[in-house]
């Protein structure tokens, strides 16, 4: 893929230039929709998440700080938090049962395998590989699939307390490995 300057597109958005938002959209909408879809698991909802996220990006572009991180991570986070908020609110209302979650997650491609094949994923793949299978799965089920700790506990048939301890230990090990 050609290099793309996300930070300058975000500066354009902060200056209220709609063409800058369009450039970001053309470049990233498909990728961001995949992120939202994986978490909310329903296309109609994912489409709404993407819509709202782009309005957020437009409104909040002025607060993007390129000294803290990349523009791509920033916009991806906006989509993820929107999707996560939706799925948490929805699960309180509808209570998706664990079996359904398991089925959906099983049918989706394995992000760990995909990471190995991706160019910028080598380092994260290496650090996740060092965690061991269970702890790695906890991180990816949360980050990629948007599962809550209790959903992960059910999914892995592991006590909630153990999952919580794994999260903590995995984060400390990952921080060390990725820094």
């Amino acid at each position, binding site marked *: 893929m050609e290099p793309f300057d996300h930070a300058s597109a975000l500066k354009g958005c*902060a200056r*209220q230039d*709609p063409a800058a*938002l369009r450039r970001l*959209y053309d470049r990233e*909408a*498909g*990728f961001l*929709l*995949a992120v939202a879809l*994986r978490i909310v698991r329903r296309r109609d909802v994912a*489409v*709404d998440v*993407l*819509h709202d996220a*782009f*309005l957020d990006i437009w*409104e*909040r*572009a*002025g*607060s993007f700080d390129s000294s*803290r*991180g*990349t523009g791509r*991570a*920033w916009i*991806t*986070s906006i989509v*993820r*938090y*929107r999707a*996560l*908020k939706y799925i*948490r*609110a929805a699960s309180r209302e509808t209570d998706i049962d664990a079996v359904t979650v398991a089925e959906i997650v099983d049918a989706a*491609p394995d*992000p760990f395998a*995909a*990471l190995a*094949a*991706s160019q*910028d*994923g080598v380092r*994260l*793949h290496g650090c996740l590989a060092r965690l061991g299978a269970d702890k790695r799965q906890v991180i*990816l089920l*949360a*980050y*990629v699939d*948007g599962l*809550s*700790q209790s959903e992960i506990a059910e999914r892995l048939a592991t006590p909630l307390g153990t999952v919580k301890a794994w*999260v*903590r230990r995995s*984060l*400390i090990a*990952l*921080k060390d490995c*990725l820094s």
Partner: protein
Amino acid sequence: MIPSNPADRDVLAGEYVLGLLDAVAMADVEQALRTDADLARRVAFWEEQLLPASSALGKAEVDSAQWARIEQALATRRQALDRSTPPALTRSKSGMMRAAWRSPTLWRTTTGLASAAALVLAILLSRMSAPAESPTRYFAILQSRDTLGQESGPGWLIQIAQNGTVRSLPLVDVQPGSGRALQLWTLWDQARGPVSLGVLPPGGAIRLPPERLEAIGDGQLFEITLEPEAGSPIGRPTGRILFIGRAKGAATQAL
């Protein structure tokens, strides 16, 4: 509570990014991120380092009509911004300023001033024939709702001026309790769900800048819910409805 130990802060930031915090802890982190640059850096670390796992998902096919919908929403917002002359405080069109208007911290620090200013303004207006305010286009009288969901008479008045300014005027005394606040919502699109107009200051009376309101029409629903102090952490009502009612266009007849 935001920990001070670096390892605990990394774990908290990581749990926030992974989406593993409950609604209250998540709201705490969001609140802290506004002022805690160190925590913001730790959050950014995880957002950056975990990004490849998102990228590895590839792309989904986007419907070609989707951009048009975004463009239309932007146009509506700009129109709302350009409508008439908002009060001096909201005059700035910079994104920062509008973002700041959504910040509960700013809300809390300025609401005291704002309600004092509103009081002074009300007195001034009653004493002199100031230039007429933008005329009222819509009223919504919200009915009080008790814990059983029964309506118990008018409790709140929402007034929407021609220029989009929204005024919130309590008709009853409400104490949301410590750590809680009242939040005003409106609903015009069932598919989108209730949209927040903001957390109300203690007492509840406030005038909101026109850009807060994206749409208004006859029958549009307004409601006030009980939420955590910083507002609902999930962008939609989480607490019980205290006041609810629909907007009705005002007659154009002069007094």
